[in-house]
């Protein structure tokens, strides 16, 4: 392979292409946003469902990035050193996502049936949950989640900014001290947030693994996205020198692991509910495997798990960007399909929209596209402002040694 190049001889300035990508994604995002706003006037119900799908998708990119970043601070690894600035840029979108939550908060009465007194009056099990599922407490929980996510974003970014010029081990120590409880915080807040925003769409249903399922889904989304973006930048220095087959292999292995854990959590939830066979629990699945929805469910089994799993078993595939990137793109598309399958087949309060049969509305596409465009635009904007690698990272020279990282 290439001769060893001293990292000091490189400047890690982001290529100009990053700034133009930021503009292009923002333009796409805003064009789609215009369509989305038209959709909001045509059918606010459908718009809100589409918004929730798109919002959970991009929230997954950001929170997944934050989780992987904290994991890396505690464990290290060459794949992490290469992808760290991308994870930080993904995490830096959390303040933006805080603002983008406002439409969900404003639309909560159209999204969540448990806010409708007439529905609660006829559903005793939902009335019994009123101490938890009520407007004020729901809002408070969302506020707490966003406060914590923003706090960790600020703290993790502050240390990282200093590291551009300061190699003091105290900063590393501080980042570790924030990362360890941060992973616990991620687990708790994500369980609360996904229970509130997704599970409560069907308030009679409950599953305790739901938060865990989202944790792994978000790590999977973020991992696949970081890999795709890294590979799209492979021609630029320093990636052209350091993004070798061994690093791709690590990304491939982690995507394989997360794919398997995704299937493990999905199947655990399904098996326990299937074995219990209780009306309260199975209704959620019955809504999702009948009336045409079984095609979506089956596509998840095959395209979110079986196919990527079988492909990623191959060592050659994981070491070849041309083969690995399409698998990562498939994973990303299926993350969207999964959210569509989770969000849409729920009761639409007082609208007469039938979700017992498979239904798709153009806003389910336009709104997520707008959110993804804006998210990626902001992502590349953040990413383009910092050196591509953390120059003071003591392990950095290892990235230029090929073939023997462990």
């Amino acid at each position, binding site marked *: *392979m290439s001769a*060893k190049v001293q990292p000091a001889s490189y400047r890690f300035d982001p290529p100009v292409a990053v700034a133009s990508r930021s503009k292009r994604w923002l333009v796409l995002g805003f064009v789609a946003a215009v369509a989305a706003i038209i959709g909001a006037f045509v059918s606010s119900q459908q718009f809100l469902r589409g918004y929730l799908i798109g919002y959970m998708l991009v929230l997954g990119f950001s929170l997944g990035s934050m989780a992987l970043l904290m994991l890396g601070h505690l464990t290290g690894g060459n794949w992490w050193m290469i992808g760290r600035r991308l994870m930080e840029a993904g995490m830096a979108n959390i303040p933006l996502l805080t603002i983008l939550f406002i439409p969900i908060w404003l639309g909560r009465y159209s999204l969540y049936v448990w806010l409708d007194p007439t529905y609660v009056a006829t559903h005793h099990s939902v009335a019994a949950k009123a101490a938890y599922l009520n407007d004020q407490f729901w809002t408070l929980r969302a506020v707490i989640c966003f406060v914590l996510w923003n706090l960790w974003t600020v703290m993790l970014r502050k240390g990282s900014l200093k590291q551009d010029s300061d190699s003091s081990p105290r900063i590393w120590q501080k980042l570790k001290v924030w990362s360890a409880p941060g992973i616990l915080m991620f687990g708790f807040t994500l369980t609360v947030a996904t229970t509130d925003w997704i599970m409560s769409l069907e308030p009679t249903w409950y599953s305790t693994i739901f938060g865990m399922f989202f944790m792994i889904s978000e790590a999977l989304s973020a991992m696949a996205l970081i890999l795709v973006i890294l590979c799209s930048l492979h021609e630029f220095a320093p990636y052209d020198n350091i993004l070798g087959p*061994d690093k791709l292999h690590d990304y491939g292995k982690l995507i394989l692991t997360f794919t398997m854990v995704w299937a493990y959590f999905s*199947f655990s939830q*399904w*098996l326990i509910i*299937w*074995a219990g*066979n209780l009306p309260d629990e199975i209704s959620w699945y019955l809504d999702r495997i009948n009336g045409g929805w079984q095609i979506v469910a089956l596509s998840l089994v095959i395209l979110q798990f079986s196919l990527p799993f079988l492909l990623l*078993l191959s*060592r050659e595939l994981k070491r070849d960007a041309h083969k690995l990137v399409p698998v990562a793109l498939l994973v990303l598309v299926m993350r969207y399909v999964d959210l569509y399958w989770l969000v849409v087949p729920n009761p639409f309060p007082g609208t007469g929209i039938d979700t017992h049969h498979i239904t798709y509305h153009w806003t389910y596409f336009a709104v997520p596209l707008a959110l993804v465009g804006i998210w990626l635009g902001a992502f590349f904007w953040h990413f383009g402002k910092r050196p591509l690698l953390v120059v003071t990272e003591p392990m950095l020279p290892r990235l230029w*040694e*090929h*073939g*023997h990282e*462990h």
Partner: protein
Amino acid sequence: MTESALQPAVHGVVAEFTTPDGLVSACKKAYAAGYRRMDAYSPFPLEEAAEAIGFEKTAVPLLTLLGGILGGLSGYLLQYWVHVRAFPLNVGGRPYHSWPAFIVITFELTILFAGITAVVGMLALSGLPQPYHSIFNHPRFSAATRDRFFLCIEAADPKFDLEQTTLFLQTTDAVEVAEVAD
């Protein structure tokens, strides 16, 4: 034949390196020079060295896959046979052929069989356990488990010549080149 009666048999020539990069570049050089019967030793897995000495793919992944498929099939069929054929029990009205419940055991047996096949297959294909190997005649070889890297060009190589090969290895980054008795 007369020569070998006078001299002790030679296993090969061993070069010692202090860095993994030194070993890898020496492996590439030796392969380019036409040597084929050689082996590289390192304290940790060094995939590049394996590639450089022309180490070909092994059958271990294929064996593991076959082991996994066999394990999965046997796990599923065992449960099918027990629950549907041999001893059908009505558990809460669920069908005898309750495939969701069979998945867990099927998965576990897939992993078990694949794991065992991988270990046993690796040992069998690499000829282990092997009580004697000439490379250990090299007095410094135990450092291969700590911080040193070794390349051994074996006497069995058709291009092997004690003097020439020693001279060749001295042109690499080796800190020491020595012959090893068989």
